[in-house]
């Protein structure tokens, strides 16, 4: 396979401008990953969950810090400056640590699925197996929060070539799995269209701190530069900036202070439409006609 044939090529220069509410130029959404990592998950043939033999004390303990300590720091900073979360949820967190899910729901955050846990991978799943984790996600979040999820970010970013078709089949509206644009785009599937909303690898705190080894203040400056550029370009057609977060990273005591200043900056700027993922998807759907269903 050369091309997964997910979407049409559309150059950045030749698009009808998107318009965001209130004349905003950049839709900003914050995506906290509320995740559960198992200490002792079963092995997957294509990917090890942990670098070390179980128990991987530092690997697990680091993630656990997010669920014991970091979540509330991250959430309070977001609430303080009026940023609702659009949660990438390991849906088994509803069973393991329901207090965290309840806190997010009480803040008015939107949930989408990030799989069952972040240590169970979708590679090599049959369509029926992948259908089962999508159905589990819808039912689990509905039971825990009353919300019907509309979106997907594959568990640990593990996919099959059927994933997009199965998300559309299940009636989901958006995917956060594709990183090809700074605006929403339509994805063609065999079961009707999906919207790909820009998430981000590059300004994800995981990349900032684990891949690029940024200091907390350098990461904060990176987010501000990303925002300033997208807000400026958005004057000729609305852009999207996502800030994907992990409480075990951004919620550390040396990082949360500088990050708070980023939210203060964006909230005070006046060009940002601070929104949930589903609201951005709906604005896009109302302005851009969908593609044909794939054969």
């Amino acid at each position, binding site marked *: 396979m050369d091309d997964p044939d997910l979407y049409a090529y559309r150059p950045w220069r030749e698009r009808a401008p998107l318009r965001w509410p209130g004349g905003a130029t950049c839709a900003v959404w914050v995506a906290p990953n509320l995740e559960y990592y*198992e200490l002792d998950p079963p092995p997957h043939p294509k990917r090890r969950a942990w670098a070390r033999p179980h128990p991987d004390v530092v690997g697990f*303990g680091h993630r656990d*810090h997010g669920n014991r300590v970091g979540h509330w720091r991250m959430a309070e900073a977001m609430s303080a400056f009026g940023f609702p979360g659009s949660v990438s949820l390991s849906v*088994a967190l509803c069973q*393991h640590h*329901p207090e965290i899910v309840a806190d997010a729901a009480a803040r008015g955050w939107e949930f989408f699925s990030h799989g069952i846990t972040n240590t169970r991978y979708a590679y090599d*799943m049959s369509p029926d197996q992948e259908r089962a984790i999508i159905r589990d996600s819808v039912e689990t979040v509905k039971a825990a929060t009353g919300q019907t999820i509309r979106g997907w970010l594959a568990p640990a970013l593990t996919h099959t070539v059927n994933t997009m078709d199965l998300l559309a089949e299940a009636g989901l509206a958006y995917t956060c799995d594709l990183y090809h644009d700074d605006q929403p785009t339509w994805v063609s599937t065999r079961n009707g269209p999906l919207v790909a909303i820009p998430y981000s690898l590059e300004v994800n705190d995981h990349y900032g701190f684990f891949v690029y080894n940024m200091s907390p203040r350098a990461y904060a400056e990176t987010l501000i530069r990303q925002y300033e550029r997208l807000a400026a370009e958005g004057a000729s057609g609305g852009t999207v900036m996502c800030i994907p977060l992990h409480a075990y990273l951004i919620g*550390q*005591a040396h990082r949360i202070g500088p990050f708070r200043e980023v939210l203060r900056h964006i909230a005070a700027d006046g060009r940002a439409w601070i929104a949930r993922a589903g609201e951005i998807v709906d604005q896009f759907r109302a302005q851009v006609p969908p593609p044909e269903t794939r054969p």
Partner: protein
Amino acid sequence: MTLDPSYLEYPRRRLGYDHDLYDWSNIHARGPVAWPGGAKVAVWPCIVAEFFPLTPADRPFRAPGHMQTAFPDYRHYTARDYGNRVGIFRLLDALEARGIRGSVAMNVAVAERAPALLAAVRAGGHEIVAHATDMNGAIDSSLPAEEEEAIIAGTRARWQALGEEPRGWLSVARSQSWRTADLLLAHGFAWMADWPNDDLPYRWRNGIINLPLNHELSDRQIINVTQAGSDSWAEQIGDAAAWLADEAARQGAGRLLPLQLTPYIIGLPYRVGALERLLDLLRSRGDCWFAAGGAIVAEWARQQPG
């Protein structure tokens, strides 16, 4: 393509963790701990003194900082030894000049090989934390149980021969097996520092206390792994202290700031000034309680009896 159906089974999907080692707890909703003198942040200086044998055992894995070239790796052997000959005395001096007593997590081999260093640690009033035998004394679940017990029991016996009874333990690379916490209790250890999952001590179901030595804040992580430099390290720790103190004041509940210091990293001439400036900054805040790990654990346990 299909996965083995067992991969989708999840019997431990339940309230709490998928393990039985300790219970989940939200730090922001716990019964508060109050540090002595009304301090907001317990600052735990923890110097880590390591002996890297010239021949790595590679069993069960090679520790961070260990030899890197073909045998004999004089380059790294001596550069690590520099920490125990020179760098650590700069760190001890920096603490002594400010009246700070902390912990020194030592491979017992360091104490045996360098009695003068052990004497200096004692003279400084610092607590000794057991840190395995040497940097070949790593543990994980692939190590046979009798070998793991030999490391923990051997460390205990060798410290006893030196007249010491450490109550705290730090594993090589913080790596444990499923057995480690039980073995530590059985061999007289009351607390361990391996699990970096909290900003306060907490108790395991078996009774041992974990005092988190946050790896993210260590000089190794910030200076060696992320290559941020010692000024950035000091700035990041200073930012952490400010955040923790503010959070402690808002919640009326103390917090922990571990300060992991590696002699061959932060003890270099061009870096140690950053440590001295950081210690001065933390002292000038007026809301930090500098203490050894064992003292922090004891204060916490007095207020949070098991």
